[in-house]
């Protein structure tokens, strides 16, 4: 838990604050944030991130494009990704799965679910 550096990506500053607060409460203190996929890729290049939480619907670069983009880069092929989004239609979930998302939560989420999915993802 202590050595996990999490990148939280969401275009909504409110959601970023909620996610960061929930993570801190669960014991994850090392967190960086980004407002969209493009900014997230820039952060990945300079920060030693080893876990990603990303939204789907974002301007500039959405979450799915972000996942497809980084999965095509050798250095991020195995980076654990948890998608946290409002998208709950089965076809969307399958698309995220195909893109290389490791776990998926639909908003609104409970702190317990977020915590559980992080633990599940890193232990896979």
């Amino acid at each position: 838990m202590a050595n996990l550096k999490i990148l939280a990506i969401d275009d909504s500053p409110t959601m970023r604050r909620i996610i960061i607060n929930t993570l801190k409460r669960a014991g994850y203190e090392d967190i960086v944030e980004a407002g969209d996929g493009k900014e997230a890729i820039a952060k990945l290049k300079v920060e030693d991130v080893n876990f990603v939480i990303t939204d789907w619907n974002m301007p500039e670069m959405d979450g799915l494009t972000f996942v497809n983009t980084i999965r095509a880069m050798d250095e991020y092929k195995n980076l654990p990704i948890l998608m946290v989004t409002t998208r709950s239609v089965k076809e969307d979930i399958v698309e995220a799965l195909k893109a290389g998302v490791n776990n998926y939560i639909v908003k609104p989420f409970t702190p317990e679910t977020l915590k559980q999915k992080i633990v599940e993802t890193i232990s896979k």
Partner: protein
Amino acid sequence: MKIDDIMYSKMQSEIAALASSINEIVGKFKKLQHPLTESREKVPKATEQLDKISEQTAQATHQMLDTVEGITQREEQVKQRLNTLKEKITSGNLDGAEELIDSLIKTAEQTYEDVYTIMDTLQFQDITSQQINHAASLLEEVELRLHKIISVYNGQDSSMTEECTDSEKAKRVYDPHADFSDKKATQADIDNLFARKAES
């Protein structure tokens, strides 16, 4: 040329002009039919989205108010217990003081939990902002159709109107199904999909 022939020829050209005008009007009506039908469908959808926003905002606000009311009520008890504790310390009679401190710790923990519950409920802001973007996008579509209708009547190129609106629309990002309580797939469904993928 006889007068009848002249009259006949004039009438013939007038009827031809009239037929051409009718043809043009019919063409315009055909062009209008599609945008009108689309607009008729989009307005109720936007209204439905706005109703949903109002309902879900109220639901989230009530949840938060319930929690805040709980905290406020407990704070009254905290004040009373602290006063009792103060009296006990002042009088030097510490009987029951430990129980009082334990109950105060319990209350503080409960308040801490409640504050996080409020924070979790605030996720509605992200969901309703997507619903608002969806409703706004539907209304923009209607606006575009109306502009198209005006363009057709004025004999202007309607594709220009579409290009302008498309550049505005690109800024809006939303999930058309975003909902505070109605999830299309449960967490168990999602977990099953991921488990099946892991097995294969």
